[in-house]
């Protein structure tokens, strides 16, 4: 099949970018979306042009490195699918495909389709952990966790940190990403001890990074490749209020 690609090209963070059009012939429907871009890049390299820069690593939907805004949706038209898992069989012969980087103030473009997601890292640095030292843990089964809670914590923990929630959100809010971590730890006994401080610090950091505010449109949930539920956002809000209202004053 043939497709026409309209791809955002930008030399580096300092320069301005623009869209370039690439007609691409003989694309196999069996190719993954990124293999299709590899195929384009091979042709560009043979022509001596710079290939399109995009990020990826595992190519199996788990590392969260990849992420392209494809035809108006992060990770493309399929739900619960990362860009690297998307296959060309989902596109039509002759289709025009727009490929853009994640757009958000907190995710500046580094080159072409690569953005800097270090803001996500700093949210985790703020308090995305349970403070326990190596070697100090009690025997694992001495802390029972109800299966229902453990499963729910798992559902929150599957976030791959891709940033699609921010890309999808009309407000560029990072609530789903932060909430997934806050919720995972807030639900289980191991994480409850410092739950109040955690949510406070993570939310503050998130706001400091320049993400937008949540207005509960649930676009994040719709486009999260891991199907993380916006219920966790409510849980984070609850934690946040209870932290503000009941939490101790911090120095």
């Amino acid at each position: 099949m043939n497709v026409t690609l309209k791809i955002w090209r930008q030399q580096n963070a300092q320069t301005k970018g623009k869209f370039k059009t690439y007609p691409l012939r003989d694309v196999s429907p069996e190719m993954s979306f990124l293999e299709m871009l590899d195929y384009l890049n091979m042709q560009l390299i043979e022509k001596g042009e710079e290939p399109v820069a995009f990020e990826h690593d595992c190519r199996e939907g788990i590392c969260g490195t990849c992420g392209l805004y494809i035809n108006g949706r992060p990770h493309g038209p399929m739900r619960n699918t990362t860009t690297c898992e998307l296959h060309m069989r989902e596109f039509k012969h002759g289709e025009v495909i727009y490929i853009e980087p994640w757009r958000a103030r907190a995710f500046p473009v580094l080159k072409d389709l690569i953005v800097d997601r270090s803001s996500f890292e700093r949210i985790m640095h703020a308090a995305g952990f349970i403070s326990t030292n190596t070697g100090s843990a009690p025997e694992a089964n001495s802390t029972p966790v109800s299966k229902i809670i453990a499963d729910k914590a798992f559902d929150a923990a599957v976030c791959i940190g891709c940033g699609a929630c921010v890309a999808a959100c009309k407000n560029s809010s990072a609530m789903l990403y932060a909430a997934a971590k806050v919720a995972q730890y807030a639900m289980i006994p191991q994480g409850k001890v410092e739950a109040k401080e955690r949510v406070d610090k993570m939310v503050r950091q998130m706001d400091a990074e320049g993400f937008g505010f949540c207005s509960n449109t649930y676009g994040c949930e719709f486009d999260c490749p891991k199907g993380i539920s916006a219920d966790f956002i409510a849980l984070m809000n609850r934690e946040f209020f209870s932290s503000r209202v009941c939490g101790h004053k911090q120095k």
Partner: protein
Amino acid sequence: MALAGIFLMLFLISHLLTNLLMLAADGGKAFDRAVELLGHPAVKIVEYTLFAAFLIHILLGVILQLINYRARPVKYKKAPRTEISTFSRYMFHTGIIIFVFLVIHLINFFFVRMGWAPLPETAAHSHDFRPMAVALFQNPWYSGFYVISMLFLGFHLKHGFQSAFQSLGLNHTKYTPAIKIIGTLYAIFISVGFAIIPVYFLFFFSS
């Protein structure tokens, strides 16, 4: 924001119930009695809270919208196809419409009550809202504007109701679906409830 919103939503219920009394077949007696209550000191407190709530809600709404606008300096070229409810997408816009309505609404009634605007001929005194309303509603333009505003208010509330619960973290696998349904019913009740008053006075009432 959500707290103010909830307060406003509660207010809307009482306001609507009061207004519906206008339709009562008693020539407006019950309504007048209700209006008299406005002078009560307890109601005064509620009134000030109401102004504060509006102010907070609107101010926060505008600030958040500005921040959110700035959070994405470069927009997408391809129009987003992420499916979100239209109501949630246009909260700010419906909010603005409500705001415009509110200003006009206040000029028409509240200003009169406070004596900041001249008393219309139809009214006997500054609390005599029913004749004022009847006169306004018999203007098809005004009624049309009122009905449309109520429609947008309904849109705003359709999303706002459940959104407030989500924002406050009042979420539960069992009850949230019910909250969403109640929110929709509430939005319909409020917007239809307010809208039938001008429709009644325009089409089915002659003084």
